[in-house]
């Protein structure tokens, strides 16, 4: 392997530091309801906060707690998980499985020091474009109030020395 040397872009870091903090939120959503709900928000041209990055899964049943841990580890200020309303799951029961899993996992997260204010769960159907937009705005506002995720939180990755 050849070693190519590129200069680190020192300016990037400085710029980032200069910018005011804005929440970074990772959303894990199901393909059939919430992703489609977000699409509807788009086709309806509803404006909402730009802080959320969606990761699409087929179903909330697919969402492993490891995903949530990883997002916090990488420095997300909050995590949103959203899927189909009970009874509406495209796969009949994935959301029920997910609901139970979160019911336990969120307790563990809170107990180990991740503020419940940084963990969001919702049901957004494919018809709820407005709910999606409102949700993103509410979540963003609440995270803004909670402030940045503490870099010394044990869940969070710190630079190696």
């Amino acid at each position, binding site marked *: 392997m050849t070693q190519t040397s590129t200069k680190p872009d020192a300016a990037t870091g400085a710029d980032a530091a200069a910018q005011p903090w804005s929440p970074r939120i990772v959303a894990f959503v199901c393909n059939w309801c919430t992703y489609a709900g977000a699409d509807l928000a788009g086709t309806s041209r509803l404006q909402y906060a*730009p802080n959320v990055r969606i990761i699409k899964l087929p179903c909330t*049943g*697919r969402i492993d707690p490891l995903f949530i841990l990883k997002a916090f580890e990488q420095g997300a200020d909050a995590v949103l998980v959203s899927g189909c309303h009970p009874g509406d799951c495209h*796969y009949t029961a*994935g959301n029920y*499985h997910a609901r139970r899993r979160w019911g336990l996992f969120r307790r563990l997260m809170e107990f180990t020091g991740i503020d419940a204010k940084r963990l969001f769960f919702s049901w957004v159907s494919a018809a709820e474009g407005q709910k999606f937009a409102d949700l993103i705005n509410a979540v963003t506002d609440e995270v803004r109030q909670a402030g940045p995720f503490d870099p010394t939180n044990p869940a969070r990755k710190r630079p190696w020395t």
Partner: protein
Amino acid sequence: MARVGVFICHCGENIGRTVDCAAVAKAAEAFPGVVKSVDYKYMCSDPGQQMIKDAIRDERLTGVVVGACSPRMHEPTFRRAAFEAGLNPYLLEMANLREHCSWVHEDRPVATEKAIDLMRVMVEKVKKNAELRPIRVPVEPTALVIGGGIAGIQAALDIAGGGKKVILVERSPSLGGHMARLSETFPTLDCSQCILTPRMVEAANHPNITLMTYSEVTKVDGFIGNFEVTVRQKARYVDPEKCTGCGACFEKCPAKKIPSEFDAALGNRTAIYRPFPQAVPNKPVIDAEHCIMLTKGKCGICAKVCPTGAIKYDDKDREVIVKVGAIVVATGFELWDHSAYGEYGAGRLEDVINGFQFERLASASGPTTGEIRRPSDGRIAESVVFIQCCGSRDPKRGVPYCSKICCMYTAKHAILYRHKVHHGRAVVFYMDVRAGGKGYDEFVRRAIETEGAEYIRGRVSRIYRRKDGRLVVKGADTLAGRPVEIVADMVVLADAIVPQPGASRLAQMLGVSYDEYGFYSEAHPKLRPVETAKAGVFLAGACQAPKDIPESVAQASAAAAKVLGLFSQPELEREPIVAKVNEVTCVHCRACIQACPYGAIEDKEIKDSKGNLIRTVACVNEGECQGCGTCVAVCRSGSIDLDGFTDEEVLAEIAALE
């Protein structure tokens, strides 16, 4: 090394207005693994697609990310283009820059920054994507229809008419189901048997239909396209090959006092019997429980009188395994047992009967040859009270749901009664009249307005027998607000519609889910009302919910259409988004098996070359897996993954957002 191509679409002004597409393309060019990054006005246009195809060939791309509209819109378009250029379509991903970005944000720098993030996420994912090939499952083009009532007959005929083989299994000795027992049908009052029996005969004679009456499904293995079903053929004691259906046997049978199931116990049958004269097949069976020869070892009269020697007292139950590609369940319904309503004298008062019994009384082929005679003494009933919602809409003692067809058949009963007993009094107690349906409300109006049925809105509190043998029906007229008392010769209870006994057992065999009452659950209440959550198993008729004849027939035809669609290709092609088990690390805790909504995961035994069991692991049946990934998240050791959404792919996406 990954060689990813990035294509940013302006979507005219739709994306370009708020997202600086050129800047996004430029930023993406610097992502690790990206070898080409361009932006273009309309990526979905022919020139746009050509641009992607050319790049795939020229740049030897190993992955493509199109930043454009929602993948729900154009993912098939772009994946087809990739395929045409020789790239596995699952190596192309879309980033949703329009619905999720340009249309919902106004600030250009902010939207551009988000678009870059969205692109990075998909670039990181596509680098981990694997080539996937559509899953092909061979399909055995034979259908099994369970239940030989009108729904089962219709489904079988439609599938057979479509040129595919059908095995039609019926539990009783004859086709026909409940419909064969009906006198006339609402709202047209055509004779039930007149319209049904031709279809029964057609089903029996159809070259594509194999009839298995007096048979039950006892085991179901396999999956869509490839079911193996065990059917138990009960011993008939009559060789159907030799029997000509002459009837000499049952005319001479000395065991004559057996209550007829077909006549709802209002008439009798013999031990060797055919359920009704138009039965299909029109060949008798011996009821082993009541046959003197089979219970006591002496008699043998039927064998003596049989001109063809068809009687076989040593006949045995047989199990047959059939291979089928699809299953239509049409097991129908039963009437709720109204003995829970003690105040209606159930079981004690002979002249309090249910709807089926009235049908048999009203039927020209019934025990009274169509005269409305009360069971206790055979007198013509001069006054009949009909009570709707007996058990229905009664969460406490019956069932909470509406049985749907009772309003209509009660109106029919009242009309039929008035036709037969012109001077008779027909009184109907009802809670509500629900007559939605073509010609239905008109039919009820006719019963009330021109046929002289007296409709009383209210419940009956008690039925008792007077000294003179007539019944007293005490109830309330809630519209008039006073108690009423009607003297009747007969009371007909419109019992609730409930699933067949044993419905849940069959459902468990089939892997079909069912509600708390035992009605089978459809895959989606709106959009997949005929399918079940178990791929390849379809529903027809009242086994799903109370239904009348036209609805049952319509659903049966719909199920047949689904089956024919499935059978239209020799192989079933499915999206390869399925779960896969790592058999090396699986410890067989069975959490995935229990969690799978489709029963698509099963045990697999791993054996050495000598056939000794080494270990048992979970195994996903690709034919049944729908790709939800619920199993992946319950697997603690990380031994299952979902193609198309693998752990590696998802982790790459999360890491891209660092």
